[in-house]
């Protein structure tokens, strides 16, 4: 076993080569951990390795204040011994720490409780996944701090062209990274990626008036794709925070509201995925444990997972068990098509994994047939919920919280932002009353796209 911590300072040129060298060394460590685990009596052992080289800049109050260079590498492992499980992880990549981690995990397993469902896939079930060409770009890996500064300067000027935009923090980073998964049954997966990511966080300030915080973020796999996307995020962020200024109070009512793609992600998607998850099914917590093939949602809802699409930052070729990923339709016109299983929940439910451990990876709700403008005319006064800040009870389906960055539409026209407006309801009461989905869709951050949804049965409490 070699001592292979990255010790050289981050070099701009040759980042890809440095990453490949490190990933090869980490792969070697992973294989030695597997061997040590076997020697120590583990029945099965899984090793995860990862590493990254990241450059990051931070803007606070319109000025670059921090430049950050980070190198990171770590490994984690899971052992099974007599159908008992233990795990360990560390970022101290040395031969003795790797051996110690194996022994710590085995010690934990010995004190644990036997579980017949513990399993790992073998190489037949989990053949080497085919890499995705868009995920790694040598030129992007070598992006310099100066290039980031240039891009950030342009975006900052764009976002703050309206003097009412106050940026608390604007960050941008470029990273080159790898992650791999190996197990004692012959599974061996590895993928590398480059990514630029950015986020704006701030508010609108107009004299004494201060809006609520808002944020926006984006990503690109390649430097060449970055500028246009970054400027679009800057524009969207500026529009949000200035649009939130001078809010008014909404009236209380119960009925129709429109959820934006952000609100769909923050509120509705969570309920859907929880009750479709294999872990909820195996524990008897899902209301949809016997509902595959049946209509559980309004027919306007179709949700697919696209793990190989470059539209999503979560794209990956293999899941947390090492199984090659593939596209799935989770809901089709309101019908539940499958439960989201990893190897463990699948064994407990006496089925097979659909390679979604850690997933979904790239969720897309299908567009509907209605124009957003028409959805906003569905009620004389209707709340457009853009963000949800509140509490949810996944099991019962209850939710209650503040409608942030939200607006009241009157006779289809924008009546401005609202303040101190709360929404509450129960997911299962309106799951089949999602009246319509818009033709327009929007991508949120890096891993989700959705239309706007018209939903009935929501309690709106004005301040």
């Amino acid at each position, binding site marked *: 076993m070699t001592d292979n911590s990255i*010790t050289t*300072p*981050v070099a701009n040129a040759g980042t890809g080569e440095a990453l490949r060298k490190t990933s090869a060394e980490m792969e070697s460590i992973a294989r030695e951990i597997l061997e040590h685990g076997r020697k120590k009596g583990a029945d099965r052992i899984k090793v995860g390795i990862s590493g990254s080289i990241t450059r990051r*800049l931070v803007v*606070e*109050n319109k*000025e*670059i*204040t*921090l*430049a*950050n*260079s980070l190198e*990171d590498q*770590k490994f984690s492992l899971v052992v099974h011994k007599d159908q*008992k*499980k233990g*795990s*360990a*992880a*560390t*970022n*101290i990549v040395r031969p003795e720490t790797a051996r110690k981690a194996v022994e*710590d995990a085995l010690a*934990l*397993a010995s*004190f*644990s*409780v036997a*579980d017949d469902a513990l399993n790992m896939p073998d190489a037949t079930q989990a053949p080497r996944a085919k890499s995705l060409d868009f995920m790694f770009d040598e030129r992007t890996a070598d992006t310099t*701090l*100066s290039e980031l*500064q240039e891009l950030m300067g342009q975006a900052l000027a764009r976002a703050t062209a309206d003097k009412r935009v*106050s940026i*608390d*923090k604007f960050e941008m980073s470029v990273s080159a990274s790898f992650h791999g998964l190996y197990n004692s049954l012959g599974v061996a997966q590895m993928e590398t990626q480059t990514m630029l990511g950015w986020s704006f966080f701030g508010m609108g*300030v107009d004299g004494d008036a*201060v*809006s*609520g*915080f808002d944020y926006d973020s984006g990503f690109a796999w390649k430097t060449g794709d970055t500028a246009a996307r970054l400027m679009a995020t800057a524009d969207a962020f500026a529009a949000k925070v200035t649009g939130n200024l001078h809010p008014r109070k909404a009236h*209380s009512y*119960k009925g129709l509201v429109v959820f934006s793609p952000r609100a769909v992600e923050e509120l509705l998607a969570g309920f859907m995925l929880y009750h479709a998850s294999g872990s909820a099914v195996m*524990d008897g917590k899902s209301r949809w444990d016997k509902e595959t093939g049946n209509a559980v949602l309004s027919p306007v809802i179709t949700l697919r997972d696209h793990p190989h699409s470059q539209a999503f930052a979560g794209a990956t070729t293999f899941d947390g068990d090492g199984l090659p990923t593939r596209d799935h339709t989770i809901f089709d016109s309101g019908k539940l098509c499958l439960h989201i299983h990893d190897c463990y929940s699948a064994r407990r439910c006496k089925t097979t994994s659909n390679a979604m451990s850690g997933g979904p990876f790239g969720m897309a709700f299908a567009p509907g047939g209605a124009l957003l403008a028409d959805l906003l005319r569905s009620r004389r006064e209707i709340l457009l919920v853009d963000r949800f*800040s*509140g*509490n949810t009870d996944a*099991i*019962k389906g209850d939710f*209650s*919280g*503040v409608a942030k960055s939200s607006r009241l539409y009157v006779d289809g026209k924008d009546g401005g932002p609202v*303040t*101190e407006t709360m*929404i*509450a309801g129960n997911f299962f009461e309106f799951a089949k009353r999602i009246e319509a989905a818009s033709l327009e869709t929007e991508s949120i951050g890096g891993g989700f796209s959705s239309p706007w949804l018209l939903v009935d049965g929501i*309690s*709106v*409490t004005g*301040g």
Partner: protein
Amino acid sequence: MKALLQKIVAQTGGDTRNGYIELRYHRRQSNSFMAQRGRVDVANHSIVEGVGVRALIDGAWGFAATARVDEASILRAIDQARRNARAILASRGKKESHLQRGKLSVIDWKGPGFDELIAMPIADKLGAVINFERRLAKSSSALHTARCRYNELLEEKVVVTSDGAAASAKIALPEFSMSAIAERDGERSTSSRGAGVSGGWTCLYEHPSLENVVEETARTAVDLLSAKYPEGGKKTVILAPAVVGLLCHEAIGHTVEADFVKSGSVAQGKIGQRVASDLVTMADTGRETIAGYAVGNLPFDDEGVETETTTIIKDGMLVSYLHNRETAAEFGVAPTGNARAWLFNDEPLIRMRNTFLLPGKSSLAEMIAGIDDGYLVEGAGSGQADSNGEFMFGTGYVWRIQNGKKTELLREATLSGIAFDVLQTVDAVSSEFRWDLGTGYCGKGQPAKVDAGGPYIRCKMNVGGRQG
């Protein structure tokens, strides 16, 4: 480690050309166990270690980190941090900068319980989790799921700066949480309880009594099966200590963090102004002495500044923001010891520690007797605050109060309001006090272990509920 960092800083830090340098060694050992439905789902041991380096040159910060803690690697990280700072200067130019000194710490401190948790066999900790889960599961036939989780962080930190800080600390932060799902006739309800301390196993076991936590978790889940929802609207409420702590943290604490103040939070320009009723005095502390085990206790922050108690609101008047060394210099005040980083490779941000409202003179019974129609709100959930002072937080359950009496248990609710408006309505503060968010984490780019608490308070705020 401290001697090594001091040697390196002596070699490389603190001249005119190279500016200020700060080295922060951090080793975190954690054990996490979770049992539910008779299984052990998590039995994990992890160690993260490294040195974070910040360099400040002519107003520009450079940061770098290394997971290797030998001299050569740390020297390379220093060089990289300085090059990063100079990269900013190349495009932006120099800027006047100053770090307020404050009391820079030179102590070597070991917190209570550290040695106890290091010495305790891992089998005993995992065994306790398995046993508590079994007992919770057996405590009522109506329980569908019982879950018990234990997590401990064993922190070792050393901070050495080129202007004189040279301090080390070892801190133990164990926590337990239990949750239950009850089921009857297809109806389900959930209940969660937790306890976290800065201390050892014995301290954790007793504050509060984990035996009582098992019983309360099961009872509340079962009782909530037949509970109704509260009605929405602006209500007179009594907030329990956990909820008061959440209010202090979310609604006020974030708005007075100096980085948010600079960006234009609602607290900007309000020092010396009335922001609450005169019954309200609120503080944030790294050295709480009321109980001695609040989880935000730390002897110095991640810039090496000795912590103390910072009064934020005194008798209703806003008197201080929360600062790091840089914002303290900008505002012309002493640093308050609020610079905190989650891991060695995170840069310090302004964060809270233990945030609380000071107790008053009323009794809870008197406060309930003074309400014709309102709620007693117990069990804090998660919460968020906004730059304009609008806050939201969830609560575990609610008691209806009618004609001066606690009458009916109701399901959870979400509370919201504008922070300073709500504090102006406080008309009673109890003498009873509790730290009650020991399992809490604050999220502000990085996680931070924080605590919060207070007395019971009576005020008016929005309760999110159902419209007919």
